[in-house]
């Protein structure tokens, strides 16, 4: 089976407004999927539906099972969600934050076993934050902090990562660093990631698959190459963009 999420006629309403309108979509497994769109297009809303954080109508299946049939704990073991701009983890050490990722496994009262500890170590090593294990999270830089949160998701042993604008608060160097890490995490360990991104070029460069939303509907569902066309970008953002080709053949979009 290669489908991660199978979404059928999904609608989300808030009083007076429809945020998502009849979204029907299959998302592939073991890919980095970029969700893009203009402000208010519903990309974050879609991600929150997939994370089971908001109510919706229509049907969504994750790994072949409808979302309501998953128990909260089983779901959290298979899928990890990082909200936009995670809160400050006041007074917490890096390893303690990462250890919170074990919650779906040991629960509120279960023992924190050596096995749990081992997963925490592996997660910190994978995200390159082992040297900071005993530092306070608050004292790290933005990029390092974001890698801590990613490590927490790794410790959760989830094979699917949902990330809501993980790069929005970072400068360009840290943004690239975080996206590289996400990409590596998916390639090396057979994980899938769905990432809400603001920046078209970032999405084209680091994602295998692009889903674009416009006014709560699907505007594009395809490869990054399909996105990098002036017409496609105009459909999504209602803005004329020019496509330039770099020396290595990679295409970049700039406002025309």
């Amino acid at each position, binding site marked *: 089976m290669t489908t991660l999420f199978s979404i059928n006629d999904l609608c989300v309403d808030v009083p007076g407004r429809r945020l998502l309108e009849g979204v029907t979509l299959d998302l592939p497994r073991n890919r980095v999927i970029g969700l893009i769109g203009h402000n208010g297009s519903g990309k974050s809303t879609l991600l929150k539906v997939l*994370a089971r954080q908001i109510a919706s109508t229509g049907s969504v299946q994750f790994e072949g099972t409808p979302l309501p049939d998953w128990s909260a704990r089983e779901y*959290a073991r298979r899928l990890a*969600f*990082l909200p936009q701009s995670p*809160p400050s983890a006041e*007074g917490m050490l890096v390893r303690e934050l990462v250890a*919170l990722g074990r919650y779906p496994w040991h629960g509120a009262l279960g023992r924190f076993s050596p096995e749990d500890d081992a997963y925490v170590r592996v997660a910190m090593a994978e995200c390159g934050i082992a040297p900071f294990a005993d530092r306070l999270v608050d004292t790290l830089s933005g990029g390092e902090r974001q890698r801590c949160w990613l490590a927490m998701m790794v410790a959760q042993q989830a094979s699917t990562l949902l990330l809501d604008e993980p790069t929005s608060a970072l400068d360009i160097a840290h943004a690239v660093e975080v996206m590289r890490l996400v990409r590596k995490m998916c390639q090396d360990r057979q994980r899938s990631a769905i990432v809400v991104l603001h920046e078209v070029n970032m999405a084209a460069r680091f994602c295998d698959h692009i889903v674009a939303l416009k006014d709560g509907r699907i505007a594009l569902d395809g490869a990054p190459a399909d996105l990098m066309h002036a017409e496609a970008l105009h459909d999504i953002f209602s803005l004329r963009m020019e496509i330039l080709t770099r020396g290595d053949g990679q295409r970049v979009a700039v406002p025309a």
Partner: protein
Amino acid sequence: MSLEQIILAYGMIPRGVIALVAGAALGLSGAILQTVLRNPIADPTTLGISSGAQLSLVLTTILAPDLLMAGRWPIAMSGAVLAAALVMTAGARRAFAPVTMVVVGMLVALTASAIATAVTLAQGEYLLSLVIWNGGSLVQQDWSGVQALTLVLSLGGAAAALLARPLRVLSLGIEGASGLGLNVAAVRLAGIAVAVALAGAVSAELGLIGFVGLAGPALARSLGARSIPERLVLSTILGALILSVCDGLVLIVAGTSGEMFPTGALTGLIGGPLMIWLLPRLRGSTPPGTEAAEGPAPRRDRPMPLLLTLLAMLLAAAMLLVGIGRVPGGWAILDAQSFADFLPMRLPRLIAAASAGAALATAGAILQRLTGNPLASPEVLGVSGGASLGFAIVVYAFAAPSGAMLYAGTMTGGVIALAVVGAYVFRRDMPTERILLAGIAVSSLASAVLSAMMASGDAKSWTVLAWLSGSSATVLMPGALGLLSVASAIWIAAVAGRRWLAILPLGHGVSAGLSLPLRGARLSLILLAGIATGAATVLVGPLSFVGLMAPHLARRFGLALPGLHVTGAALIGALLMTLADFGARMAGFPYELPLGLFASLIGAPWLFWLIMRGQR
């Protein structure tokens, strides 16, 4: 003129007119405050301004009555200005976040009324006139009050008219307004000054009339007043109507016999439910109410020695304080024989005080972690308010209530208050800080009803007042051990829930992502805090600040992990309360001061220090 004519001309007609004028002033004051602070739940009551005026009048009446020769106005005004300055300073350091402003305002109001109670208790002969004033009675004997308030209202109205346009620019927010060349600070100051003057004038003339300033603008908004001039005018008119209707109701219900029944108590009755109704309608775009309490607090690598030290200090303090006593003419340390004699007498109250402190501190630690707001404390959860109300109802409803009946009434009141707050937890996506506001609404409702009851001037109000100030003197061993077991159970439950306490401050998204049962976790933690507060309230009364102080101290001492934080807070709470009990026993020797009162007098300065520190 006949007697009826005199009563009509100098009693009833002025009363009717002053209801209109005072209501208008309060409505305008609330509307200005709400616009200036961009906070739909701001009004002279929720920001503590009226209570400040009240406290200064009580203090002056009792401590320096000569000052009243110049009239009540200057005194009430200075109290109102002081309270407003305090709350605004706190607000300025927190970007005027609406919820925080109201939490600070209510804490100031609660503290002011605690101090007023203390002073009133100490000087009983003035009680009756004071509580009637506190309750906001509209009874008039001539036209002077009407004249004075009309003057203030017209000046305030003129000032508001001048401010209308700057206020509209201010409604864009600070950055936007100063970008348009507006002197934000000056406009804010002017607006707040007008609002405080209006509210202070009403306080000086009539006393504490709560929530008209909240209800007027709220009604104006729901009637569709959009622009700021519309809102100011409509709020003024509606405020006048609301107070008139309330006063009419009081006159009809109470008849001639209940002439002294304060109308302010009735407006408080309406205000509590109104706030509960308004809360879910607060716009989400307000600045975040959560804040980093006091910058990075230290973190201790090896917490065990600290916890053991605290435990040792607690035990040592207990032993020592049993053994030290005041005798006429000096201090004495008991010899072995007297120690053995005194122990059975002093042990129960010692255990009870320490357990109450531990329970309150645990509740405070839980609430501060749950809401992510460092000003959250059991006092604002509403449980104490509900419990006091339950106690008062039993005192008034039964001729000679037994101890068990009082206890049952207290517990029932607390549970009902808790249920109201718990209902909020069940609302989807309700920010935890608004749960605090629900608690505040319950508290203010309770205090309104209480002041109405007391204003009856019955001898029973003494029983209630005495209980409100809290005393450990009458505790017996079974009660003390019961409280001890409640405190221990709650501490164990809180330590067992430490993983929830670690994850919940990280917010809704992270908690749900980690499969934390969000509603269940919040509800059970609120219940836990509520039970702890209720159990302790029975002993120390509704206010002590231990629940606010102890968790802060624990965090300052470097206890960062939830389990350690809760444990440290419990130990510190127990220690503080033991010391407060000793102080209450000794300070007024040979008389005892009420324990809760003594603890709040220690806690209040701490609270103000905390408020003033603010955010870095």
